[in-house]
């Protein structure tokens, strides 16, 4: 469940923080069944270590953020993100869809790679935007995206995701 706000894996001592330090194997889903945004959110939120009531609230907050503007950044990638008091620390979930889903992305392409980022409103380590920037930057690389799409196991996907540092 929710952990202390400061990560406990010695991250604060390192100048580079890796994406996978916030992305355990249990938060990676390589075969999302969703075909549209709403059910994809539900699947992604289910990958996070949250209580039932927190999941419901997390979905509400995500919907609200999405209503302000789509988080589909194009190239088949979406990075839904939101902040709320219910999150004790920054958490990430990664989902991949084989078929692709309709997401109202800027380029109107179907989304196949999704990164969900949730965080407390005020976060002492201030990693929220750095994580967001790291994902945007990594996924701009076509080779990186192709490797993520081709990953055959969670371990392989995690290994590819571990290359994203910030």
């Amino acid at each position, binding site marked *: *469940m*929710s952990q*202390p*706000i400061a990560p406990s894996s010695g991250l604060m001592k390192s100048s580079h923080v890796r994406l996978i330090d916030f992305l355990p194997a249990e938060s990676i889903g390589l075969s999302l069944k969703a075909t549209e945004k709403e059910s994809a959110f539900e699947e992604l939120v289910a990958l996070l270590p949250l*209580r039932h*009531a*927190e999941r419901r*609230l997390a979905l*509400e*907050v995500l919907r*609200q*953020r999405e*209503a*302000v*503007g*789509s*988080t589909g*950044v194009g190239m088949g990638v979406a*990075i839904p993100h*939101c*902040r*709320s*008091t*219910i999150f*004790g620390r920054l958490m990430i979930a990664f989902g991949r869809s084989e078929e692709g889903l309709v997401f109202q992305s*800027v380029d109107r392409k179907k989304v196949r790679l999704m990164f969900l980022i949730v965080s*407390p*409103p*005020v976060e002492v380590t201030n990693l929220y*935007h750095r994580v*967001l*920037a790291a994902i*945007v930057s990594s996924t701009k690389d076509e080779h990186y995206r192709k490797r993520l799409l081709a990953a055959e196991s969670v371990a392989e996907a995690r290994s590819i995701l571990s290359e994203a540092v910030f």
Partner: protein
Amino acid sequence: MNKDLELIIRLNDLELLHKEIEQGSLSALAEEGLGFSLGKREKVAKAREEIRGLVDRRLLSRFDTIFKKYGKAVAPVLNGVTYCCYEKLPVNLCNTHSENHEITTCPYCGRFLYFLL
């Protein structure tokens, strides 16, 4: 979770988002700089008004007073410590409210408390 507390948390999150967008905070600028659109800001205002209409009037009045005073009206509690005043709460209070079934306020500043696991 207590339904009123749920509404209070949603309202708090929306107020913070609304404030960020309206004031063009660094956070909002950072998001827009990364290519995320925050264009439909009136939707936040509309959702905020909808939730305000659902919250009990007395709670809403207390929410507004606290939000105005501190800039946020809800604080998380982790391992018995409030993340507003950073004070240790009595153990019996934490045990009783750990599932957030009731509305609890910080005995030091009055902010609504949300008990994290």
